[in-house]
């Protein structure tokens, strides 16, 4: 990995250049929360002032720019008894600025499902490769448990990654296009003093985390506690609203629906992100539902995050960003569930 030092004024020039020629997505304040702190989302921005790189977290993850909540897989033109199928993939590059380490780690996990091994998705790959990603370090957010999952740092999957050293950024470069883009403005080499400052910031961040959760035992624990009443307890509170999966940076389940235009000349096949918590997730024709009780669906989501994915990829799917906990109206959150599972295990 190459490292450079970028003065903040030069970074601003780089932003202006990007904004002039490309779509730019960045954290933006959208409202004020009940505690008086600003709430953010990743949204298109037109000026550097619109973005807030000092944000804590966002309500929604950035996954919609890679796996849109709704996307046309294809469109149909109908003529008499025949039809033509049109498929198009994203071709316009855009910059996504200010992703935190957990969200870049989430993309690396999605890459494994969407871009490798079997049936790699051209839809996803087009969006991924047309995204120029500038990540940024930050002080730990409340309620996040990324450090327990090892997703608080990242060393690939981005183009540039910034660490704030006050008047300048310490920049990690992970791609050729990152390198050439960075060199459109003035950068300088890293000195011993910069390295010292960088290590100090990294240490301060690392020290700011809550104590680790016992996630290493989770895959095993989940298997043993498959029938535990922990699931009944939390399941009873779940509203089956699906919000947790919507905001999650790694939840990728979807459904496909089709629609015909009012004049019957065209139609579309649309993929929409779904959630395994929704009641009809596993319902088949004839009405049979393979997961009727809501606790079985809640449990299934946790299984996919912390056991199923581990079986396939040797790592959990969850990156510990804490968005699902923040969004859940019923107060359902991974750390509490883990503690309950662990307590249950210790009892027996």
């Amino acid at each position, binding site marked *: 990995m190459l490292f450079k030092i970028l003065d903040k004024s030069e970074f601003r020039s780089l932003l202006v*250049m*990007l904004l002039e*020629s*490309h779509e730019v997505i960045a954290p933006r304040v959208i409202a004020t929360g009940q505690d008086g702190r600003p709430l953010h989302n990743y949204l298109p921005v037109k000026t550097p002032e619109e973005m807030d790189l000092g944000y804590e977290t966002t309500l929604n993850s950035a996954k919609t720019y890679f796996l849109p909540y709704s996307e046309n897989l*294809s469109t149909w033109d*109908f003529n008499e*008894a*025949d*039809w033509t*199928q049109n*498929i198009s*993939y994203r*071709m316009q*590059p*855009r*910059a996504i600025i200010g992703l935190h380490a957990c969200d870049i780690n989430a993309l690396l996990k999605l890459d494994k*499902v*969407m871009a490798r*091994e*079997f*049936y*790699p*998705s*051209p*839809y996803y*790959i*087009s969006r991924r*490769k*047309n995204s*120029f990603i500038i990540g940024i370090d930050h002080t730990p957010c409340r309620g996040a448990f990324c450090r327990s999952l090892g997703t608080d740092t990242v060393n690939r999957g981005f183009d540039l990654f910034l660490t704030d050293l006050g008047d300048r950024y310490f920049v990690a470069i992970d791609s050729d*296009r990152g390198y050439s*883009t960075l060199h459109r403005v003035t950068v300088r080499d890293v000195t011993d003093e910069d390295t010292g400052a960088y290590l100090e910031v990294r240490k301060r961040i690392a020290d700011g985390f809550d104590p680790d959760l016992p996630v290493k035992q989770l895959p095993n624990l989940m298997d043993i506690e*498959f029938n535990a009443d922990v699931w009944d307890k939390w399941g009873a509170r779940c509203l089956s609203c699906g919000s947790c999966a919507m905001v999650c940076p790694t939840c*990728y389940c*979807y*459904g*496909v*629906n*089709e*629609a*015909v235009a009012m004049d019957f000349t065209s*139609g579309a*096949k649309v993929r929409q992100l*779904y959630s*395994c918590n929704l009641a009809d*997730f*596993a*319902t*088949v*024709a004839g009405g049979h539902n*393979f997961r009727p009780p809501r606790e*079985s669906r809640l449990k*299934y989501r946790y*299984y*996919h995050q912390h*056991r*199923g*994915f581990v*079986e*396939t990829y040797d790592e959990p799917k969850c990156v510990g960003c804490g968005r699902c906990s923040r969004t859940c109206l019923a107060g359902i959150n991974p750390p509490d569930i883990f503690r309950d599972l662990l307590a249950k295990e210790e009892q027996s």
Partner: protein
Amino acid sequence: MTPLLFPYDVTQEDEMKRPLDFNRRSHLMNVDRMYKAEIVSIIRLTEKEKLFHIRIIDRSERERFSFLPGQFVMVEVPGFGEAPISISGSNSQKGFIELCIREAGKVTTMLHRAAPGSRVGIRGPFGTYFPMEKMKGHNVLLIAGGLGLAPLRSPVTFVTENRSDFRQIHILYGTTDPSQLLFDYQYEQWRRVDGVNLDIIVEQADPAWTGPVGRVTSLLEKIDVALDETYAIVCGPPVMFKFVCTMLSNQGMPRDRMFVSLERRMHCGMGKCCRCNVGSTYVCMEGPVFDFWTVMNLKEAI
């Protein structure tokens, strides 16, 4: 000045330029592209089920389309939706696909309204298959309940077309009543194949019924084969295959020599949408065909 970021066009990747072939799972391809196919003929089987003979229109696509018994395709009615359907016929004629479809909802109802000559889209084949090659040289039990004969008809055709490769062949089929019997016009043909035994049973007889009455398991009791030299394929509702497989394993048949086909909701067929998951197993990729030992070990499977 050169732009900061260059557009990336996935269609320019070498793999994307190759002819579409869903059997090359690891290749980058137009995963949502349909083979355009024509419904060449429709045969009414029962009140709710019809058999569709489908032919892929483009000749080179037809050449490329090959499947193994047990695999399924996604059938598309543009503007209405897609449904996973097992291929129900022989795999010896390339690009000709037989699908036995029950009228069950949006897409299948549209298909039931279609006339010969209508066009549908096909993606696939997807999923695992029955290990017909491994079964060669052994006795084979092919057991179906209800609509289970739709997926089972493909191995049935395979064993009749390759009769000499197998030892004893028993086909057992049960439905609720005679009006539900699928492919009744073919029983005579199957029975005439030298050394193929076909037994049919219904749970409720009607006045015209002369055959046995009861469950498919009671047919099984009468079969006399060396179970340690036998493979079985069991297709039907979960209660049925669980019952049959448990009975066979109690009589000494290894559980990993019995194969079943699981049905789950599916929206992609390619291990992406998660709708088909049983625990952490993707039924569309690791199934729909599983051996019974694996099914017993899947959490929440039956």
